[in-house]
């Protein structure tokens, strides 16, 4: 599996990732690392206690990392959550809607990590 095929599989924007990282080598390094990045874990873990600070910080971090990696679906969803919990912003979504977005990120993350592991272990 090539990097490009991996991106096709996980629904990522390969072109966007290459605009940022410019080299397959660098993209390869960071997509492998993404599988171990704990920011997504942090967001998933706070689904129950719903701490707005953690929700904002973790979704904000996911947004940044994923935007650089061209993982636009995760990045866009994380951005929605970050804006929802940005200090000073008015809440627009219900908690259930937020939880739904967290679960979407969780699902996408799993799919992405599984595919990355497959790419790594091939």
């Amino acid at each position, binding site marked *: 599996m090539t990097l490009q095929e991996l991106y096709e599989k996980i629904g990522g924007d390969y072109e966007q990732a290459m605009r940022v990282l410019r080299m397959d080598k*660098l993209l390869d390094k*960071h997509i492998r690392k993404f599988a171990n990045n704990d920011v997504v874990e942090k967001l998933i873990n706070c689904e129950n206690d719903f701490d707005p600070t953690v929700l904002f910080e973790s979704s904000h*971090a996911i947004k*940044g990392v994923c935007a650089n990696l061209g993982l636009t679906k995760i990045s866009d969803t994380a951005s929605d959550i970050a804006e929802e919990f940005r200090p000073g912003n008015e809440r627009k979504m219900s908690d259930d809607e937020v939880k739904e977005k967290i679960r979407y990120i969780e699902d996408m993350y799993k799919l992405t990590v599984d595919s990355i592991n497959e790419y790594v272990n091939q």
Partner: protein
Amino acid sequence: MIKSKQIQRPQLVLVVDDQEINRDVLGAILEDDYEVIYACDGKEALDIMREKAEKLSIVLLDLMMPVMNGFEVLETVQSDDLLKRIPIIVLTAEKNAELQALQMGAADFITKPFDMHEVILARVGRIIELSEGRQLISAAEYDRLTMLYNRNFFFEYADRIYRYHPELKMDAIILNIEQFHLINDVNGRDFGDEILKTIGMEIRSFLSETEGIASRFDADIFYIYCVKQDDYQKLLERFQNCVNNLSENVSIHLRMGVKPWREDVEPVTMFDRARTACNMVRGNYQNPLMIYNDSMRTKEIFNQRLLNDLNAAVEEKQLMVYYQPKYNIQCDPPKLSSAEALIRWKHPELGMISPGDFIPLFEGNGLINVVDNYVWKEAARQVGEWKNKYGFHLPVSVNLSRADIFDPQLIEKLVNLIKNNDLKYKDLKLEVTESAYTDNAKKLLELISNLRTLGFEVEMDDFGSGYSSLNMLSEMPIDVLKMDMKFVRNIEENETDFLLVKLILDIAKYLNLHVVAEGVEKEGQLNLLKDAGCDLVQGFYFSKPLPPEEFEKLIEKEISIERNEN
């Protein structure tokens, strides 16, 4: 030629982001053009910034980070003078955060994701360039030693105050250190710098209490443009006090000139006048403060007139050379031995002008060479004329000013005068004032030795009027000592003065020097000097300085005495 890139410091960039991917991406973008270092959070960033404050060219700062976020870093940097000069670009994707960061002192922002590499590079380059430009301007704006304005910025700001704030009645003050070059020479430059720093600090402290600006205008000259003060004596004492305790062994004396505010007088003119006032108290340790007044203005205008009219004076022969005789008093009757050539200026409108009015003025701005050259030429011509007319050998002494010492053609000019007028070297004696020996000892001694080797006789003028020491005499290549008139003035009434004169005569005799006593006015003075062994006398007792045609009568009288003796 060294290219500007080579003299620039290596540009060091600190990337601060908790996400490794962001650090890596920025590193990859920047590493070809910059040296890049990294921090993972705000606290680590501040530690690095403090450690490398002098080397860092820029910081790229993420806003959302654990431990300490970017906003906290910006807040800390804003309140730290050392860190504040390092420009910071924030890394963000939020419009609100951009605005807040800019308001907190960030120089610019870069939006995430970092997909526009060229834009990022251009922004980093531009901000570094702007920041370094600003620092260069700041370095040019301030004197590094005193942190006062440099002269150009000072006058620019003084002009703005003058133009835009006419309601402020600003006085011009100049503060100067007496004999600063000597303090530097004797105690070292570090000590000199310490004095300048201390004064700079006190001036800044003074300006924090009043409205005004200041500059280290030149080496040891400080300019202060401030609102009118009540008591300038007290202000000078304040500055004097701050340097009094710098050293137990070195006395530091300040002097101050003030030009009080007057409507419609521009700063440049104000400071010209403050400088005039300050120069008037040069060396006056008892009263080192001078406030400019209108009589100084009158004097300035008079001086300017003299400066403007000098060329015409030379061309139209308004300058005249008078001659004062020197008599050998060890003969009976005293014998006309030589004369001193002295300048007079008969101005067509101002009348006779005292040499005391124009000699110091021309000495101060270098024009004294013109006067001296004129006197030498005229005196040499006159000596030649008398020689032909009377067959009488009468050497004439002329003055050599400090400025003449630096005239590279001096020897050539004097030699030509001797040759062109068919004279001997001993016919033109050269008088050098005592203080010139202490000012430029090495250069002067070399010059005088060369002149004496040629055959000129050199007289030390005004001996005892300055600070020359007796032991200095033994090292001086001179032929004659001219004892200042202040020694002679009271020798009849004051025994100590007479003893001093005898002492000088004894030392001169021991050193094989002839002595001319100046300012002899009374017979009693003459007799005492004669008994003490003084060879030559000059003064009103024999004659005031005379124009050549009157002086000729003295020559004729002398010739007639000689004939009668024979």
